[in-house]
């Protein structure tokens, strides 16, 4: 966690200082148009807040490289989720990402006998490959930009996961994402199908006593571009309900993203994560800050 914060500080320093920015190799071409790199979604991939998009993260064009770090916090009535990570986009073709997630059970931890503030952690390693299309330039066709990706997740609370009925502490999600900018309408639309076994994104492990196998889930986003710097929109993400202990609901959010410049974006959202274990109606504030180039 400290390492990521240090990384954030270093990158923020580098991009905010013209002298240092001038020394960056030309390969960091920062050549994409503002906002067309998306932001960092909860598991670290380039996307919206909940959804992974087909866009490759960062502002590198097909001749360059982009990179960024992010912090995301979701304050729910009974829980708190923190995510930090780093991602690189290579030649607008490949994206590699890492995110660290901490899920603080706060008072619920005590109620469940785990101890107040008992926290689940996940390391998430992501990779994404753009297959075809360009979401921005291909305005003369309905064909979207298509990417495939995976997110390999390692949770550190195997014993508790087993106790609540989870099958394992390690899992890998696979997804196919389609993104399309309807520029004449100032609208960015995204649809993703995800094959996953994850319970609450993996925070409660993978597979369960109700359903053990992969299931197909959906992620959708729509963002309206108000100006070059501002976008507002909504997202929906379905989740499997694998555990007998509690029904797992779908998640949705309403967001506003501010692209200050190509080096900094701030996303605020109202996020509804559904019910989580013994607490219903887990909705609250979502804040995400991304800095990079």
């Amino acid at each position: 966690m400290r390492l990521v914060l240090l990384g954030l500080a270093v990158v923020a320093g580098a991009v905010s200082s013209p002298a240092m920015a001038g020394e960056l190799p030309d390969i960091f071409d920062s050549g994409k148009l503002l906002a067309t790199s998306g932001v960092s979604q909860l598991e670290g991939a380039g996307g919206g807040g909940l959804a992974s998009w087909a866009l490759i993260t960062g502002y590198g064009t097909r001749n360059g490289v982009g990179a960024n770090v992010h912090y995301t916090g979701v304050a729910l009535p009974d829980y708190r989720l923190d995510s930090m990570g780093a991602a690189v986009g290579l030649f607008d073709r490949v994206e590699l990402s890492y995110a660290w997630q901490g899920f603080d059970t706060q008072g619920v931890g005590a109620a469940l006998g785990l101890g107040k503030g008992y926290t689940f952690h996940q390391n998430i390693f992501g990779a994404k490959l753009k297959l075809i299309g360009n979401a921005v330039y291909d305005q003369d066709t309905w064909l979207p930009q298509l990417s495939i990706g995976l997110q390999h997740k390692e949770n550190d609370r195997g014993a508790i996961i087993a106790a609540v009925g989870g099958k394992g502490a390690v899992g890998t999600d696979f997804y196919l994402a389609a993104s399309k900018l309807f520029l004449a309408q100032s609208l960015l639309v995204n649809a993703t199908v995800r094959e996953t076994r994850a319970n609450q994104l993996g925070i409660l492990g993978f597979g369960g006593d109700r359903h053990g196998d992969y299931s197909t889930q959906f992620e959708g986003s729509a963002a309206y571009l108000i100006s070059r710097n501002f976008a507002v929109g909504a997202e929906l993400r379905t989740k499997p309900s694998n555990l007998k202990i509690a029904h797992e609901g779908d998640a949705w959010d309403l967001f506003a993203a501010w692209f200050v410049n190509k080096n900094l974006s701030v996303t605020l959202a109202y996020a509804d994560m559904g019910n989580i274990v013994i607490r219903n109606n887990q909705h609250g504030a979502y804040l995400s800050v991304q800095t990079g180039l």
Partner: protein
Amino acid sequence: MMKKATMTVLAAACLFFAAPALADDSLYRDLGGLDGIKKFVDVEMAYHLENPRIMHQFDETNIDRLKEQLVIFFCQTAGGPCKYTNHDMKVVHQGMHLTNVDFNALVEDMQKAMDDQAIPFSVQNRLLARLAPYQHQVVTK
């Protein structure tokens, strides 16, 4: 009977050939017509000439002629009453080895220029949406 059929074909043909003249020019009008386009192209070119990413592309360019051609091209693209008769975008940009960085730098200058002329963002996007596919012809590197 024969006459009726001929009339129908003629009427259909008239409708068909009349269509271009009735083409939607709402974007052209929203951009402020020829005058509005001329104004932002003026400002846009000024931005290009001081943009370190692309200024060198115009070293040997007749700027006045380029502006003229741009105005006609944008006017036609926006559905206005202009006819662009110069070489197509592929030929015009041949051998320039342009990248997406160059293409997007031009777009950014254009956005700034349209901002300066108080052209609403949504109107800007309608024009850019029609220009974006030329990326395939312009960007070769």
